[in-house]
C-alpha cells in the first residue's frame, strides 16, 4: 500500500502523560513521526499537537481512531485543507558572504537574527517544502548547524 505524508492535529488536555500516550501509538506500530510540535492553546487547559507522519491510508485511519480513544484527547483532525508553516534556524561562519545569505533568507520570509564574532544565525519561516528548498540552496555557504521547528498547521 502506498505511503503518504499526513498532517494530523490532536487537541489534548495539557497533562504530564499525554505525549507519551500519543507517541506510543506510533512507536508501538513501528511508525516514525517525521515531526511533532506541541504548545498550549491560549486561555484553555488544552494543547495542540501537530504531527507529520507517513503511512498507508489504512494505518493512518487506525491510528486516528486509536488517538480518539485516548482518554485525554478531545479532538483529532486529519488535515485536508490547511495552511502549514515551519521555521528553521541556520548557523553560518561569518566568513561566508553575508549579503548573499541575507538576500536568500529574505526570499524565504527570513532574516539574519544574530551575529557574533565567528558565526551568524538566520531564520526562515515558510511551508515545509520551501524550507527544504532553502536548506538545499544554502548548502554552498557551509552551514554549521540547522534546527527545524517541525510543522504547525491550521485548517483553512
Amino acid at each position, binding site marked *: 500500500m502506498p505511503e503518504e505524508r499526513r498532517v494530523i492535529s490532536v487537541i489534548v488536555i495539557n497533562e504530564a502523560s499525554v505525549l507519551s500516550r500519543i507517541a*506510543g501509538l506510533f512507536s508501538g506500530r513501528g511508525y516514525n513521526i517525521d515531526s511533532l510540535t506541541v504548545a498550549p492553546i491560549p486561555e484553555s487547559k488544552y494543547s495542540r499537537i501537530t504531527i507529520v507522519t507517513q503511512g498507508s491510508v489504512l494505518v493512518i485511519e487506525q491510528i486516528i481512531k486509536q488517538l480518539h480513544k485516548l482518554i485525554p484527547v478531545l479532538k483529532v483532525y486529519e488535515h485536508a485543507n490547511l495552511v502549514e508553516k515551519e521555521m528553521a534556524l541556520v548557523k553560518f561562519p561569518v566568513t561566508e558572504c553575508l549579503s548573499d545569505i541575507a538576500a536568500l533568507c529574505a526570499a524565504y520570509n527570513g532574516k539574519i537574527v544574530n551575529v557574533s564574532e565567528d558565526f551568524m544565525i538566520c531564520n526562515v519561516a515558510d511551508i515545509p517544502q520551501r524550507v527544504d528548498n532553502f536548506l538545499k540552496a544554502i548548502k554552498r555557504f557551509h552551514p554549521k548547524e540547522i534546527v527545524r521547528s517541525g510543522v504547525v498547521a491550521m485548517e483553512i
Partner: protein
Amino acid sequence: MQISGAQMVIESLIAENVEVVFGYPGGAIMNVYDEIYKQNGFQHVLARHEQAAIHAAEGYSKATGRVGVAMITSGPGFTNAVTGLADAYMDSIPMVVISGQVPMSLIGTDAFQEIDAVGISRPCTKHNYLVTDAKDLPRILKEAFYIASTGRPGPVHVDIPKDVTAQIEEFVYPESIELETYKPTVKGNARQIKKAIDAIGEASRPIFYLGGGIINSNAADEVRELVNMTNIPSVETLMARGTLGADNENLISMLGMHGSYAANMSMSEADLMIAIGARFDDRVTGKLSEFAKHARIIHIDIDPASISKLVNADFPIVGDVKNVVKEMIPLAKERIDGQKYAQWRETVANFDKLHPLSYQDSDEVLKPQWVVERIGQLLGDDANITTDVGQHQMWAAQFYPFSRPRQWITSGGLGTMGFGFPAAIGVKRGCPDKVSINVTGDGSILMNIQELMTAVEYKLPVINVILNNNYLGMVRQWQTMFYDKRHSQTDLSMQPDFVMLAQSFGGLGYRVKTKEEFDAALKDAVEKNVVALIDVTVNRLENVLPMVPSGGSLFNMMLEYKDK
C-alpha cells in the same frame, strides 16, 4: 473528613461497592494494607502471586459483570501483574488495578523497587494514572471505575507513590464525573440501524457473527430474541460461547481456527454478515481476503476503532450492543420474515450433517473430548467453566454444552497459560453457588499452581480437571503437522505427582485413567466441595480438529489428520 491517601483508597473502594480485592502487599503499598487491616467494608483475598491476583479479579469480573479490583506493590509486584493487565486489556475486562510506587521524591532515582509502572502499563491498559497529590485521589479513583466499566471496558491502572498514601487531605468522594474528553457513543445511529434491517430483509443467506462484546454488554437476552425472531443461522466466537445456549436451533457452533465445518462454511457462503460485538480476530477469520467474501457486512460495536479495522463494514453501527439490538428488535419484527431463510437454513444443516463436530471415542484410553462432554452431562448449567490455554481450551469450547452468558471464561486475546486456575478462584468468589471448574492442561496448571494455597485458605473450592497428555499439546500438534514431528521442547513426560501435590496444599487429588474413575472423582470432588486436582490421563497424541491452518481460508479446513 481529613484522612490519609491510604484511607481514601479504602473509602473510595467502599463507595464503589467493592466486595472483594485480590492482592499482594509490599513496601510501597504498606500504608494502604495497614488500612485494609483496620476495615471491614470488603474482603481482601491474598493471592500467592501478583499475576494470579489479577487473573482472579478478571475471573470475578467476567463471572459477575462487576469491576474487578486488584492491589499490588511497586517494582516486582507490579511487573508480575503486567501479564494480567495485558490479558484484561485484550479481552476488554473492566478492572481497577492499584499499585504502590516509591515516594515522589525518589521517583526517577532508580530507588529500591522503583520501576516506571505507568510507562509499562500504558500500552496494556485502557487508561492509567500516576497520582502525584492525595487531593486528586478521590477523583482519580472515581474516574478509574467509570472508565473501566463504560464504553469498551478495560483495565485502568492507578499508581500511587508511598508519600501520597501518607498525605492527609480533605476527603469527599465525587458524586458525578466530568470527563470532557471521554464520552463513549452508546446509542446507535437510527438511520444506520434502519438500513441494516433493510439489508437483512434483502439478504438470502444472512448469518449472525456473535462476539464477546455481547457478554460484556449484558446483551445476550436481546441478541437471542433477535436471532430467534429472524431465524437466522448464527455462529459464536470463542469469547461469545454461552450467548445463545447450546440447544438453540439457530446456533451452528463456534467459528474460526477450530470452529466447526458448518460454522466456517456458512460464514464463507453467507451473503450478509451481522457482526455483533466481534472484532475479526485472525484466529476467527483465517485469511482475511477470503473471509466471508460474498457477504455484505453489518458491524455493531461500541468501539469505533474496531469497525473497518480489518474488514470494511458496509453498515457500521457504533453503539452499545444492548441498545442497538434493542432498537433492532421492533424493526425486525415488522420487516423481516423469519420463514424467508428456510432454504439457507437447510444448506447450513447439510453442512453440519456432512461433517459434524465429533471425535472418535475409545475403550482403551480416555479421550479429552469425552471428558469435557462428561463434565457437561454431569454438571451442565450448574458449573462455570474456566480454562487455560491449549488443546484443552479448544475442546472445552467445542464440546461443553454452554447454557448462559458468563458461564464460560477463557483467555482469548492474549491466550495466557496460567489464567485458568486463579480466574476460577475469582469466579467461585463471585458465584459461590455454582461449581467452579477449571479445564486445564498439564503444562498450564503449573504456571499458577501456587494458587492451590489461596483456594484452600479462602475455601474457594475450584475443581481443576487436568487433561493430561504429557505434552504442551497445542504446540506439539503444530509440530506434528507443520514441523515434521520435531517435538522440540514440548514433551512433558516429567510430571509431578498431582495427587500428592494437591494434598500437600490441603486439597484433594485424584488420578483418573478410565471413564468410571472420572465420574467417581468428579462426583466426589463436587460432593466434598473441596479444592481439587483431577489428573486425567488422556490420549497423548489427540489433535484438535477440525482446523484451519494458520493463514488459511475458513472453507479450507483440515477435517482429519492422517499420520504419514
